[in-house]
């Protein structure tokens, strides 16, 4: 069988319930992970799309991309795959979750290189339970009908479908490649692991801090100068939570350094002005 042309689909229609904020917008080293997922997939496929819920078609985080909206609600990731296959039935789909911060291009390239077009799907085997990983996998055009029957039987789990179907399972080249990040705590751990190495010795530096809105009220001041050993905004915020009674959780905030958006892990220098920005509400 000749290989169907490969399109890419990044899934960004989840409800991010455990994270309590939009996962697509979470950033690592200053880049939203939806943008990172598209940068990974775009060079490897003929066209790349973002899978969204219909109510996300005007969402600023998503409007810049080619979008495919779910056809049915409450189907989870299968809704995105179903809508993509309905839109382009004769294409194969490389389906990718948007929240895989450790995924590297080599893992995707190997999946594509070893793809078996005569089976219904090609996927990696989970490091944890040996089950197929459905959200970094290739679905061939022939999988459309069996997937639709699966959904019509009220099934919601793409992993179970892959396990039962004629799927080629591969071993992951890099064990952590498909670790995903679902909670605020996992996000901070991943963000620290992926940020620049801050193992340099702590030297006290003079920083200027600016506070806005609810954080200004909690700190009881709009600005202050502080001598601190904090090396990154993440360390600084932890210190201010303790010493100034800031109560907003860091996963809801953005960082600004010297009047420009910054990153939780960027090294701070003497004289920097740092602000932590609560969720905005202009307009």
């Amino acid at each position, binding site marked *: 069988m000749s290989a169907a042309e490969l399109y890419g689909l990044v899934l960004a229609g989840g409800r991010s319930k455990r994270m*309590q904020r939009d996962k697509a917008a979470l950033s690592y080293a200053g880049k939203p992970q939806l943008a990172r997922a598209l940068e990974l997939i775009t060079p490897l496929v003929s066209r790349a799309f973002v899978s969204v819920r219909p109510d996300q078609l*005007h*969402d*600023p*985080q998503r*409007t810049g991309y080619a979008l495919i909206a779910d056809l049915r609600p409450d189907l989870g990731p299968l809704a995105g795959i179903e809508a993509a296959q309905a839109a382009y039935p004769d294409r194969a789909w490389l389906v990718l979750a948007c929240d895989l911060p450790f995924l590297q291009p080599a893992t995707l390239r190997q999946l594509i290189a070893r793809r078996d077009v005569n089976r219904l799907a090609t996927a990696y085997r989970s490091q944890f339970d040996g089950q197929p990983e459905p959200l970094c996998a290739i679905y061939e055009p022939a999988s459309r009908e069996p997937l639709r029957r699966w959904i019509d039987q009220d099934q919601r789990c793409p992993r179970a479908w892959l396990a039962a179907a004629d799927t080629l399972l591969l071993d992951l080249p890099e064990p952590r490649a498909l670790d995903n990040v679902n909670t605020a*705590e996992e996000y*901070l*751990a991943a963000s*620290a*692991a992926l940020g620049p*190495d*801050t*193992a340099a010795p702590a030297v006290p530096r003079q920083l200027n801090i*600016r506070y*806005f*809105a*609810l954080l*200004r009220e909690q700190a009881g001041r709009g600005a202050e100068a502080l001598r601190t050993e904090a090396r990154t905004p*993440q*360390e600084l*915020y*932890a210190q201010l*939570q303790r010493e100034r009674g800031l*109560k*907003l*959780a*860091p996963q*809801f*905030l*953005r960082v*600004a350094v010297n*009047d*420009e*958006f910054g990153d939780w892990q960027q090294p701070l220098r003497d004289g920097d002005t740092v*602000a932590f*920005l*609560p*969720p*905005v*509400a*202009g*307009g």
Partner: protein
Amino acid sequence: MNRFSLHHTALEPQQLIAALRRPDCGGYVTFEGTVRNHNEGRAVRRLEYEAFAPLAVREGERILADACARFGLERAHCAHRVGALDIGAIAVWVGVGAVHRGEAFEACRYIIDHVKHSVPIWKKEYYEDGDSGWVNCEHCAEAPEPQRPAVAHRGQGLI
């Protein structure tokens, strides 16, 4: 010329649209966002806006430049209030001028959606019952958690 501006006094739509007009534009779309007397089921008495001015202007002008490139606009301006506002006051004004109407409508929507999403401006609502709250912030507190062991990466404690 594209401009994002912050204002401590009332916005004047007539003046704002006049400054936008050019002979080579055939369609203008403007949007006014005004202070509403209710939000999420609560009666609102007045609002206060606060901005991180240098970054708000910078981010606002990035959005306007994006919109101009994306929709081929000739002109775009967004003006936003800061300070105390009463019910009915104009909080934000967006105006775009384009050769034709289609891109003008789309661009205006694009600009207001992105301004609300990423420009560092905050809104405090004062309610009829005497309470007040920062919109989008009041559910962002750190959940009270029992003492747990620190997660360690590269020898560092995390928050």
